[in-house]
């Protein structure tokens, strides 16, 4: 904006004009200024719309968070967080759901992190531009676009039925792992790109092989960025509902999971069941708000940690 202001001679407005003695140049100048003023006013009005659009986003987020928090905090008690549901899920706590969601989220990362990091290392360190690279990238971007319910169908058909796992943690973890893979690949690539080439060159110049360079120089330097991506992937997996509906989650199981082949309860699925299919939807509203609050705190908390951590990393690199 500053640039445009200097286009008009700043003295022209201040110069006193004796009445009736305006030269042609003055008239021209003042009309130019009028046009310019109008253009600036239009700009101001239009920019206000843009600002409003940005504000609406903030309002949207805070509306959801404050509403859920305002209604949910009353439900949060020690018992709520540490007990199993009772009385056909109309009372009691959500401990099995919290444990289940943590199992699924961590399991998904355990599956997706090694594969995702290795893929990203290949894409960023080894691959040369060409058809193969284009195809792999197309595969990743399409995998990222697959609807979550289709992942659910895939998990049901492949892990649950074809491999005979039945509905269990393992099937859910593998399905969620496939879903978080593109997230991990994307963030790992970003982390690898931020490692300066001079690191690689210095290592190679010292006689290290390519693999030694990657393993001992590039990966350690990129590690914080990779872990940030892992947290984001974990939060994504923890919040998903559709992929675990057919593969791992059940309405109700009183016991905590004992093996990879147990069925489990999960926070997102618990919210869905209570809100749409519970025995008494209105009576369990407090439980629904409470469960939503726990899920939001879990997911947004992990995201906040990742965002703050990443901001620090970027500052360090600068």
């Amino acid at each position, binding site marked *: 904006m500053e640039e445009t202001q200097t286009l008009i001679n700043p003295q022209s407005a201040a110069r006193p004009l004796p009445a009736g003695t305006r030269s042609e140049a003055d008239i021209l100048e003042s009309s130019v200024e009028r046009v310019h003023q109008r253009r600036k006013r239009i*700009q101001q009005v239009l*920019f206000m719309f843009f600002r409003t659009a940005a504000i609406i986003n903030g309002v949207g*987020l805070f509306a959801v968070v404050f509403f859920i928090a305002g209604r949910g905090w009353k439900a949060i008690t020690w018992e709520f967080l540490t007990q199993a549901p009772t009385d056909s899920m109309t009372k009691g706590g959500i401990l099995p759901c919290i444990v289940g969601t943590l199992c699924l989220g961590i399991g998904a990362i355990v599956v997706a992190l090694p594969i995702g990091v290795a893929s990203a290392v290949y894409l960023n360190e080894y691959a040369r531009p060409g058809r193969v690279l284009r195809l792999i990238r197309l595969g990743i971007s399409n995998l990222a676009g697959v609807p979550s319910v289709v992942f659910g169908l895939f998990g049901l058909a492949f892990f649950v039925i074809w491999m005979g796992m039945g509905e269990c943690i393992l099937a859910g973890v593998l399905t969620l792992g496939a879903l978080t893979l593109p997230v991990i690949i994307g963030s790992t690539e970003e982390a690898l790109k931020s490692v300066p080439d001079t690191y690689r060159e210095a290592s190679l110049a010292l006689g290290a092989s390519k693999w030694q360079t990657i393993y001992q120089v590039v990966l350690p330097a990129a590690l914080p960025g990779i872990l940030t991506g892992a947290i984001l992937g974990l939060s994504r997996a923890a919040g998903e509902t559709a992929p675990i509906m057919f593969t791992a989650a059940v309405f109700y199981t009183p016991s905590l999971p004992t093996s990879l082949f147990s069925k489990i309860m999960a926070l997102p699925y618990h919210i869905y069941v209570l809100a749409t299919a519970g025995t008494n939807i209105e009576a369990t509203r407090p439980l*629904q708000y409470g469960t939503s609050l726990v899920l939001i705190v879990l997911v947004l908390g992990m995201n906040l940690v990742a965002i703050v951590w990443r901001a620090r990393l970027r500052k360090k690199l600068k």
Partner: protein
Amino acid sequence: MTNARQRTDQSVRIIFFSVALASIAILAMIMIFLFMEGLPIFKKVTFFDFVFGKFWYPTSDPPDFGIFPLIVASIAVTLVSAVISVPLGVMTAIYLAELAHNRVAEIMKPVVELLAALPSVVIGFFGMVVAAPFLQRTFGIPTGLNLFNAALMLSFMSVPTICSLSEDAIYSVPVALKEGSLALGATHWETLIRVILPASISGISTAIILGMSRAIGETMVVLMVAGGAAMIPSSLMDPVRPMPASIAAEMAEASFRGDHYHALFATGIVLFFFTLLFNIIADQIAHKYRQTGEASL
């Protein structure tokens, strides 16, 4: 010694390459298993009757497997949500990339990211307990769980996608273009609308398509707030049943490898190809109309 090292390097390279193929392999497996479980339905109904059949009564006797109302519902919900989320997302992106002070942008960007991180089930729940009663009261309609509500809630999901991808596109417009326009006497607004936007339009289109792809595939929101009636909607306030909602709601009750089960997988195939189409179009735009100059998307 050197040979051993070269051999290690070579084998490591091959290992990484094979792991990198995992994404394609998973994508292929998804397709194979969808087809394996979905195609048997076409022994009962023709492909044409399945896609263009107007009645979806999978549990009546004899059952009707026509997913046309579900397809129309999915497209309608996606388009209406695009009407809301495209201006909102693109304008926010422009604001963040061009207008906002650094400090404001530093706060707003995490807000958009957190919006993207909200679990879909929570947005669906919010739509059920807040937006639905509000719409019902305001418009005096029988149910607040309808097409409009679903589109509104879907915008929550697609705005962050559209916003962050558009922002990247705007950032990668060469500064020289912008400065040239300002030096010629254009105002900031004129520069924005005549120089920056045209220069980043391919990136913004990609962002919009990917946002819509996210909306059409989103499950929990439409499952919880769209209303669930498998009819072709005649107004914004009609309850609808988009494809993902139908799959998620009915899979539990469909008998194993019965007709209904196969029909739901076939619906999954249709849905999968919709998103695949969106993604391939987005990829083509990004490649064909790649931004020139210093820009690299």
